[in-house]
């Protein structure tokens, strides 16, 4: 089937999509957007977290056809421009919240989704909000640091 999806602000047309494939497959294999990672394919790891019409979802659990005429924002679409980083991405770098990096894109989107709605998250709220994202390097403490930092920076920027 043919799909039309808006991704990171741009209209994309994709042909020959199999009805059973996931949005994640379309993003990575058909559109060359490998930022969203493919790990568990069952919604357990959160590495493929993207926004679908503004809601954080696992792209591996969205049927490609369900994204027809919808708006998708991937980790590639968070930064304001080429060569720039979003404050959440800056915070992950500054806090050293990246080890092997495989979980990072999903965590960045999940953290972005938290910080934009709750600029002063408690540690318990951060843990709850990131509960769907696994880091198998187990670098969670640095990830917590990064989200606290991102929240503080966002507040400063907004103030």
């Amino acid at each position, binding site marked *: 089937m043919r799909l039309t999806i808006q991704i990171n602000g741009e209209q994309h047309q994709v042909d020959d999509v199999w009805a059973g494939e*996931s949005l994640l497959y379309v993003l990575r294999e058909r559109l060359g957007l490998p930022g969203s990672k493919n790990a568990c394919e*069952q919604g357990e790891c959160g590495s493929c977290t993207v926004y679908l019409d503004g809601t954080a979802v*696992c792209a591996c659990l969205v*049927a490609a*056809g369900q994204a027809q005429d919808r708006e998708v924002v991937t980790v590639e679409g968070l930064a304001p421009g080429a060569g720039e980083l979003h404050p959440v991405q800056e915070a992950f770098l500054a806090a050293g919240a990246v080890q092997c990096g495989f979980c990072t894109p999903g965590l960045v989107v*999940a953290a972005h989704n938290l910080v934009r709605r709750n600029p002063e998250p408690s540690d318990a709220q951060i843990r709850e909000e990131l509960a*769907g994202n696994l880091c198998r390097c187990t670098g969670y403490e640095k990830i917590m640091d990064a989200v606290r930092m991102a929240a503080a920076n966002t507040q400063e920027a907004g103030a």
Partner: protein
Amino acid sequence: MEFYRPTSWREALEIRAAQPDALPITGGTDVMVELNFDRARPAALLDLTGVPEITGWSEREGQIQIGASMSYTAIIAELADRLPCLALAARTVGSPQIRNRGTAAGNLGAGSPAGDSHPPLLATGAKVHLESVRGSRELSIDQFYLGVKRTALEPDELIRSIEVPAARGPQQFAKIGTRNAMVIAVCSFAIALDAGSRTVGTGLGSAAPTPRQATDAQDFLAEALPWADRDPLAEELANRFGELVAAAAVPIDDVRGSARYRRHALAVLARRTLGWAWEEYRCA
């Protein structure tokens, strides 16, 4: 494989009638796992996310109609006051990403005895509204489950909504798992006290081939609770309730836990949730 994207409920029913082997999909949190792992190859997918009639919820005469495509996140945000038990269970589903997509109706459609929605729906005496081009019917929730992943849904039917009475007393839900997030219940339990009729509802999850009520435990408690005096909960009463709940379970040994552990844990959950609910009733 075909992909159908109906834009009205009528169209969805017509497609379902013409192609009963089309698998309905809404949140995709179960269906897509089956597809991703080559465990299912349905002839078609019937995407219900474009059907406006089944979004959101409405209320009429104390009954809440939950549309089939209403997400757990929306249930938590919008119905926690009216349906506390279901909202509590919804909070334990998967992760934020899963709750943003998954639906209670999807839990029913999948029919897994471990689904988190089942115990609250059983405890509150929910009804399931089913529709096909032939017409509509309403089933009480305990008639909906037939076996492991088998339900009363006919091949040409779709779940339109779930009807749950607004809470008429304290409600509680508890679930056993190895961690807080992303866990399939080892077992789960829901209790709903009806302060008006002085009756008790229960629901057991991961405790038998189908989710079920503990009717003996309900009857015992309705009779034995000091509704009028609001006395503190007697230990013997709570223990007896736990025993009767455990006796209603027919669990199995599996990778998540043994049958013996499940029975024990259900008794503990039953006592504990009763304690919380009764304290709330006493202080109300």
